[in-house]
């Protein structure tokens, strides 16, 4: 479970995040929805503990990432905005490196990588060097690397960005399976359809603030719109008019 309590973050004069609060429950997919530059990535970086909030606090399974980053990160799997791989290492070596840094080794690590290999259908690329992989292949390796330690909480920052239809579907299947396994999944996106198709709870962020929390039906009722996209536009724009 991840709790975000009224966090704020400024870079000089830029108030990237002003007031964001939400709770992401276990066995649920929580969507962070917002236009580009709304503060999603900054919020997520505070959840990792890479950035320290100016105010408020984050709680990951009882750990504050700002104070206990190591403990918080042990129960966190993350696919950040930038998910670069090591081009001269093979897919397996890339995944194994992060597994080892998570404290795994030997047969346990090997079995887990084989499992992920099966799950993400990477048989053809697992022993190849990453250099020259397609976007979709890179994404598979990155996601495998992020969840190699089988974390209870998973944060995915725009995970389907730039993927083709097949890979996107595979990714969605994986996300649902993680939910079924009882994980707390947080998904950030600026794509309405994706969020509405996957998420149990949606947190709409605009201009560094949470403007609405709920599910698709609630948003439509709140705004009086039939269509989710219209509802989203209305939610985001209403905020800017204030």
């Amino acid at each position, binding site marked *: 479970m991840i709790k975000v309590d009224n966090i704020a973050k400024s*870079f000089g004069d*830029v108030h*990237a995040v002003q007031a964001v609060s939400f709770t992401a429950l276990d066995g649920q997919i929580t969507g962070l929805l917002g236009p580009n530059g709304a503060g999603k990535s900054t919020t997520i*970086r505070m959840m*990792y503990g*890479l*950035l*320290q909030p100016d105010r408020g606090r984050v709680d990951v399974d009882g750990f504050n990432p700002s104070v206990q*980053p*190591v*403990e*918080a*990160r*042990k129960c*966190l799997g*993350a*696919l*950040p*905005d*930038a*998910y*670069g*791989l*090591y*081009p*001269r*290492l093979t897919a397996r*070596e890339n995944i194994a*490196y*992060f597994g*080892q*840094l*998570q*404290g795994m*080794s030997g047969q346990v690590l090997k079995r887990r990588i084989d499992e992920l290999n099966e799950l993400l259908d990477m048989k053809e690329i697992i022993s190849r060097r990453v250099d020259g992989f397609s976007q979709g292949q890179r994404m598979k390796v*990155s996601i495998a*690397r*992020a969840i190699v330690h089988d974390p209870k909480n998973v944060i995915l920052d725009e995970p389907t960005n730039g993927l083709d239809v097949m890979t996107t579907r595979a990714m969605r299947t994986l996300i649902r399976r993680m939910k079924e396994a009882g994980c707390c999944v947080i998904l950030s996106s600026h794509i309405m359809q994706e969020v509405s198709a996957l998420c149990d709870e949606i947190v709409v962020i605009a201009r560094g603030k949470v403007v609405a929390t709920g599910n698709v039906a609630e948003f439509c009722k709140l705004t009086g719109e039939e269509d989710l996209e219209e509802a989203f536009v209305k939610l985001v724009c209403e905020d800017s008019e204030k």
Partner: protein
Amino acid sequence: MSFWKLIKVVAYKELLDGFRDRRALMSALTFPLLGPLMITVMLSVISSEEEIEGPLEIPVVGVEHAPNLVRFLEEQGVLLETPTEEMLTDPHEVVRRGDEAIVVDISEDYSADFQDGVPATITLIADESKRSTQVAMSRLSAVLGAYNSRIGQLRLLARGISPQVLRPLNIHKEDLATPQTRASNILEMIGMFLIMAAFGCNMYIAIDATAGERERGSLEPLLLQPIHARVLVLGKWLSTVVFGLIGGILTLFCLSVAMHQLPLENLGLRLVFGVRESAQLMFIAMPLILFAGAAQLLLATIAKSFKEAQTYLSATMLLPMLPGLFASMKPMEPSIWMAAVPALGQQVMTSMVLRGETVGIEYLSISTGVCCVLTGGSLLIMTRVLSSEYLFQK
């Protein structure tokens, strides 16, 4: 997993990555080969110019005017060549073209002047801007000087005067230069190449592990792992140290092989450069290798991009070469403050070892101490940078 095991994981990954990186390998191998190659080329150029051995072969114009002088020259081992037609008419042109180093012209009046006891003229035509000509010229001058004084002595004796009158001074030259001290220019260069290797061989891997990691976008996922930043810093640093060590050892190996191949004795040089000296040099260079890796990692971490890091690190490579360049032009007197300057201290100590002198323990400990403190400082700052928000501020 324990702290050290995690460090090993990071170092192993960086080394694997480094050894698969052709650019990193190339830069690690270039420096060890560059030094010995340059020294070999320089020394063989010098030795080809300094052919001290071998007879002097000199064309002489007008041999018929001075049969006694000619006999004396032949006795002294000078081979007299018969001049060509052109040498008789225009000897200057022959020398200017470089066909002959020296042409001796005995004047037509030589015989008459000699009989009359007035100075008889011999002209030596040469271009002394060439080093080989200088050597030949001084040898020829010495032979002619000997003839000059012998005739002078005979003339004085003929007049009943002791030749001692013309020697108010008895000048003794005692040259204390040993072949080893004469080699000092080359010594300074060996130190310089060793320092270059310390900074050059690990440069690429240092950039790749920091600025490269950022540029590829793999730094953020890496920092999300549940390990303290000092694990990453130490692991990455160890991998640069391994590359630096390989570079240092290769450099010393290539240098010692080159030194044993070169005809140093013919040049009047002698270097003590065996396994024992190599080990000592490695021991001296070690702290510098530690420091070079740490400093380069720190700079490349702070740099905004791969290219920027490359610019910084190329500049840092030139700085440690400065003392070496100065020293090879004008050997410096080692003083204690030099020990406190990284690279300069190592330069001085390298020369000491190769000259066969003992390196003072306080000199060694000051130099090593300074390097270690700076290494620790750099690594600490780098840890701070990686665990701060610096890299993620917009």
